[in-house]
């Protein structure tokens, strides 16, 4: 079966997503880990989310406004979640 380059790229992306998942999962084995473990897990999750948006949902080649809005959301939610993790007192 002749697979297009674009399909190979999707499979490669999937492999990267699985690898990142494994990495996050690995970091969670220590239940009494340092605070930055949480930060890493959140950021890795949002990296995965960004790839899903750009390459699975194909927003990479979408009109700028849509891409900007979605990438903007990724940045804002990352900052908010990390912020709430690091500063639980508010």
């Amino acid at each position, binding site marked *: 079966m002749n697979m*297009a380059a*674009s*399909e190979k790229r*999707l*499979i490669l*992306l*999937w492999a990267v*997503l*699985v690898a990142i*998942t494994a990495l*996050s*999962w690995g*970091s*969670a084995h*220590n*239940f*009494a*880990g340092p605070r930055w*473990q*949480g930060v890493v*897990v*959140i950021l*890795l*999750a*949002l990296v*995965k*989310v960004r790839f*899903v*948006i750009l*390459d*699975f*949902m*194909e*927003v990479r*080649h*979408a*009109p*700028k406004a*849509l891409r900007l*809005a979605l990438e903007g*959301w990724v940045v804002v*939610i990352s900052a*908010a*979640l990390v912020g*709430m*993790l690091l500063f*639980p*007192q*508010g």
Partner: protein
Amino acid sequence: MKRLPGEEGIWVLIAGDLLVFSLFFLTFMYYRAGEMAVFLASQRTLSLGFGLANTLLLLTSSLFVAIATQRLRVTGKPAPKLYMAAIACGLGFVGDKAVEWGDKFHAGIGFTTNDFYMLYFAFTGIHLFHVLLGMGVLSFLTIACQRPNATTRGLVLIESGAIFWHLVDLLWIVLFALFYLVR
């Protein structure tokens, strides 16, 4: 060359869901900050293996959907088997969830156990509803991609359905990280 994936309306739905789920995520962090000990202790009782399996199932299903949709657009050849494979992954997710929740209920853990589990069952429950809806959408894609208008008038609707499934995958990525992994 810029083109809008799917039709405009699907992005209204995506935006709405991202908005509400963002509220879910922030609510989780807010409650966690107020009850850190309870949340950490409850987190230990979560089945990490199921969570991981579910994440991998959804990532893989998204791959199938992305390839099938792209292949349809680029080569004009429908790939209903790929959409069906994605549905199978979805069924795996639902099955896993049933067992995982069954275990919890059996152990006496439920929605009213504590705030962690209230949010856990509510948010993953609403997500599960999205998965079920998504599987319905995938079934539609399986049929629609084989229709004669699949590469013309029907393509935009197929792309929209695919985008919804990727949303389901995306939301779980964050839920998995927050509930299962953040220590």
